[in-house]
């Protein structure tokens, strides 16, 4: 025992360093967020000056307001407008990650969760999120992996770097290009609702799973969320 001790201490120390170092190396990183280039910020659609003119001052509630806006009020024909088809995504390409996946329009299932295509090689466009180029977030979600096929279309998403070019092909044959500006992991129950907003700058939002995997429930703990701005 006494002779073994001098060897045992360094061996223990080495294995301790290896275990701690390995754990530290393998832990998920914090992601990144960079300010989009000025050109990438889509100008928000502003209301016409007439409609946006605020009242000068709010009188006491009981008093009769005497100063309605003087400017001409904007108005429109109220007849129902025939639904106008807008170009929708049919393909997602991220050359740097080797992603070239067909895209399906999807909604929510009976449980109210996003219907990610069961085929891990396909990506879903949440049809109630913004169409590409429209105000708000265009949400594309794909499997990181499936039991049937192993790694899914977005397997590499957690490794994406700032500035990576993402292309979305639309059903009218056009292509929209985006550059990655942010990557974040969120616990699944805390996925920000504002990712699904239909107002504000036009943004591409890619979502898959990541973080720790629970073998019992066969689910990941986190969602990996990547945002990209138009270029």
């Amino acid at each position: 025992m006494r002779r073994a001790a001098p060897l045992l201490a360094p061996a223990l120390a080495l294995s301790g360093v290896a275990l701690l170092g390995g754990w530290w190396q393998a832990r998920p990183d914090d992601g990144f967020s960079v300010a989009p280039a000025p050109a990438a910020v889509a100008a928000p659609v502003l209301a016409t000056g007439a409609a946006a003119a605020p009242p000068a001052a709010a009188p006491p509630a009981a008093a009769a307001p005497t100063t309605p806006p003087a400017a001409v009020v904007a108005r429109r024909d109220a007849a129902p407008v025939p639904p106008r088809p807008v170009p929708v995504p049919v393909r997602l390409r991220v050359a740097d990650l080797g992603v070239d996946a067909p895209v399906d329009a999807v909604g929510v299932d009976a449980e109210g969760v996003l219907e990610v295509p069961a085929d891990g090689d396909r990506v879903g466009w949440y049809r109630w999120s913004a169409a590409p180029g429209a105000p708000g977030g265009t949400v594309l979600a794909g499997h990181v992996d499936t039991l049937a096929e192993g790694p899914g279309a977005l397997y590499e998403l957690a490794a994406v770097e700032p500035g990576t070019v993402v292309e979305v092909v639309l059903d009218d044959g056009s292509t929209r290009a985006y550059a990655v500006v942010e990557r974040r992991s969120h616990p699944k129950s805390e996925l920000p609702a504002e990712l699904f907003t239909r107002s504000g700058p036009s943004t591409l939002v890619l979502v898959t799973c990541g973080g720790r995997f629970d073998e019992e429930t066969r689910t990941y703990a986190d969602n990996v969320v990547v945002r990209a701005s138009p270029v």
Partner: protein
Amino acid sequence: MRSTRARAAALLAAPVVGLSLPVAAAGTASAATGSATVSVLHAVPGLTVDVYANASELIPDFEPGTLTDPQQLPAGSYDLAVYPAGADPASTQPAISANGVQVPAGANVTVVAHLDAAGAPTLTPFVNTPADLAAGQAELTVRHVAAAPAVDVRAGGQPVLTGLTNPGEASVTVPAGTVSADVVLAGTTQVALGPADLSLEEGAETIVYAWGSAEAANLALATQVVSGGGSAPGGVPSGEAGLADGGWPAWTAGAGGLALGGAALLALSVRRSRAAA
């Protein structure tokens, strides 16, 4: 224009009605500033008008079938008066008027100038209250503001709102998307209006007005969309195999720490025993 003026003359006999809004609207962000969101729909056929609020012109040259953008107005009491376009309010009787219309702070209101069931022009303020909607759902609200009997509203051939009378409204929650809707006389399959393809926006309230006059055969639809009330999906389940879990389990860090501690203790005890020897 001549026929418009003739029509206006016929409207002069419209009585002045006092209205008060149901103060059902909960306070929203604008409540703090004491303002309300007000839209105005002109649904009296055949008459271009000027709309006055508290004796100030609010909407000049307002044509039937048009809807103003939502405006922020100070909350309070409004005397509304509708004159034939270009008429001098000082010397003309209003075609329609409503005094003491209460616009509560924070409310979202649509004031509709329309015909009542008997065909007389009137003003009705409706409070827009978008329902809380699950992801993928839309709210369809129908308001009967036409000179017409009770109606049913059908979507895809199925009645979704029944027995609606002027100036009533009813709402239903349906999956978002495009529906083919028509209006039939209540309890019948006799189509009064439509069908029309309606785009029901996800997470929003689409308000459809049935307006005009059955007798004059000019029934028409008008639409307004009020956003708010929508939800994001409950989650994005997008992994099932665990292949992407490259992390080391937490116990590896714990074991590493224990091993380092053990090594330190061993080294100490070895040094002590050497010193003792």
